[in-house]
């Protein structure tokens, strides 16, 4: 028996699958034409899609807007960079980024989860702002210049290995990592734990009376989102060979929020689509006019006003309809008899 949420999640999976197929097509075409730039741009879009995914996990599921998710992205990127400069190991860098973003998200979550709503947005904004300033002023982290010189590394899988310098190879690695993060979050949302998160967004005050700790669920979602952002961030220095404090700035967090809104809040797959869409928009508009802020701002505003479910709001319903036709899920019975507003339990009265 599948319910509506499982059904929508399946529609998201189908969109994600389409995305993977399109990515593979791009990879094939890129290899055929010996392309570097588009593959690496695609890789970057995927990395930022991971950040958007973490914003959507918070906004779309537990219902809180983080304006500072770049904090964890940046922590992942810096820790990965520091690790790679000492030991050129992909796995070690990912493990270090995981640990660091996990710890940071626990601390950040303890602070931010004391409040919700707009206060949550402002607190996450402030947290990221303060840490970005600290990094900006820390000589050991390259201060305002950031750190260059992160080496190109070989990523080993048993007997095979892929170089981060190979455009198509690394593109595929990042695709695998980001889709794995997608799969992990999507899976978790379709568990009893995920349902509690969904409930939080809908009516947080009711949740404790059903026997679930709202704080724990929110905390778990926040930490999960922090780790997703951190692991995505860890990939950045492998692609670009440097990190800079701008990765933690509001512009980065803001772009992730824009991506999620464009792609469709609460759909996960939408966040990935939105992120790629934003990169394409910026790339096209950026070459055409330096006033890209106006265009992006306008599209964003129109999207919030007239397309509140984003791109996925357009794409997903037909997919859902198609899915339900092909799976024969019993929908609401149209010709059910109209029952009285209160149905009387047929059990006999006591005593």
């Amino acid at each position, binding site marked *: 028996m599948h319910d509506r949420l499982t059904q929508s999640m399946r529609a998201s999976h189908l969109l994600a699958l*389409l*995305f993977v197929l*399109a*990515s593979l*097509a*791009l990879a094939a*075409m*890129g290899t055929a*034409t*010996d*392309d*570097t*730039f*588009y593959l*690496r*741009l*695609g890789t*970057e879009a995927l990395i930022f899609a991971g950040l958007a995914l973490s914003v959507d996990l918070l906004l779309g599921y537990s219902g809180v807007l983080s304006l500072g998710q770049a904090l964890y992205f940046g922590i992942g990127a810096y820790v990965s960079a520091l690790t790679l400069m000492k030991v050129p190991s992909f796995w070690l860098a990912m493990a270090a980024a995981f640990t660091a973003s996990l710890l940071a998200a626990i601390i950040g979550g303890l602070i931010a989860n004391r409040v919700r709503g707009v206060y949550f947005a402002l607190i996450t904004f402030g947290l990221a702002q303060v840490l970005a*300033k600290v990094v*900006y*002023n820390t*000589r050991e982290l390259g*201060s*305002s*210049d*950031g750190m*260059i*010189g992160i080496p*190109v590394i070989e990523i080993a899988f048993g007997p095979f290995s892929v170089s981060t*310098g190979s455009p198509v190879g690394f593109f595929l690695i990042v695709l695998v990592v980001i889709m794995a993060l997608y799969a992990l979050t999507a899976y978790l949302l379709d568990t009893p734990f995920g349902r509690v998160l969904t409930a939080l967004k809908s009516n947080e005050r009711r949740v404790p009376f059903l026997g679930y700790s709202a704080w724990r669920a929110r905390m778990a979602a926040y930490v999960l989102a922090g780790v997703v952002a951190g692991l995505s961030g860890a990939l*950045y220095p492998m692609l*670009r*060979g*440097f990190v*800079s*404090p*701008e*990765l933690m*700035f509001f*512009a*980065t967090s803001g772009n992730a929020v824009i991506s999620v809104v464009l792609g469709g809040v609460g759909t996960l797959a939408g966040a990935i*689509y939105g992120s*790629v*869409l934003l990169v*394409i928009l910026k*790339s*096209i508009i*950026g*070459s055409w006019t*330096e*006033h*890209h*802020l106006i265009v992006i701002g306008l599209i964003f505003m129109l999207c919030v006003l007239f397309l509140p479910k984003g*791109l996925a709001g357009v*794409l997903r319903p037909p997919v859902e309809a198609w899915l339900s036709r092909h799976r024969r899920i019993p929908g609401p019975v149209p010709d059910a008899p109209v029952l009285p507003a209160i149905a009387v339990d047929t059990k006999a009265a006591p005593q």
Partner: protein
Amino acid sequence: MKTATITPIAAGLLAATTLAGSAFAQSGPIKIGVVTPLSGTYTPIGQQVRWGLELAAKEINAAGGIAGRQVNLLFEDEEANPSVAVQKAEKLFQVEKVDFLTGTVNSGSTLAVAQLAERNAKLAATTVSFADSITTDKCSPNMFRVNARAEQQSVALAAWLAKEKPKAKVFYLGPDYEMGRSTVAAFKSSAEKGGAQSGGEVFAPLDSKDYTQYFGQIRAARPQVVYTSVAGNDTVRLLTQLQDFGLLSGLTVVGASGTVTSQNITAIGAAAEGFATGVGYSPQIDSPANKKFVAAFREANKTDPDLYGADSYGLLFAYKAAVEKAGSTETDKVREALRGLSWQTPQGTKTIRAGDHQAMQPMYVVRVTKGKFDIIDNVSSENAIGPDTCTRF
């Protein structure tokens, strides 16, 4: 739907560029990529860079181009963000197949682009970033700097100060980030070699709204000179607030080359009077080459060039000279040609030191008089340059 759109675009552009790349590489126009901030706080600097380069390209093209090939400038907005700069630079290198790259402003972008140039086996140059690290400990065989670095500026200014105000008590006020601190430290060490004594130092956060909170310390220290390395809007606030509080009388304010520029001098107004700095360029330089440049620049852009515009203008002539000397646009050959190259610019003869890719040039001390920078002193390029500490090549 959207994934469907990326592929045709990608494919189309790829097809176009592979054609362009192979068929016209040595005969079509020479492409020069410009990755510079066209939006955000650094826009005014990006504008000067753009205007300087455009003027130079126009003049070079009118005179027959570089080795008979026209120069084609391709601009991208880097938003003063290294992540964006690298992405745009890669686009220019990989898709547009540019032969040369310039334009980065903040040192983070310049350093990141230098590394990218190395990995793409291309050359790049900065005409703005003055952080010493770019041609010292973080120097790159693929990055050149044609503008004066922080130390050249400090040396020139300190030399003048030692003459003008011997043994002056100097108060230092810098923006609180790496660049601001290192600039203050560099000037302080130069000035103290010349006999100046310190009246204290303070670092204000970037984008401070109010500098009045530091005025108490300045007043109590009773310095004769205040040195500052703040820039942009921060300078406007600092100097006008100093004026409003009546601190400017009897005080000499000196600073970094980016402190008072043509972008903010109008906004600062009378508070800028008497401000002195060490720079590699001033529109006042009294040479026929400079007069011609200033007139042409003013004609094209309705405003005076500043050091960013002039250094950017000069860069294209260095590249022209190098390509013509090398007889090619190939990276290794052009790099060899640029090393040790001497060429003429509006600010006089510049020479690129082979050891660290830093341009040596005569330095000027300029002071604001009636809203214009007047040259009041100069230091020869040999005396200003400082030792070569680059060890990578």
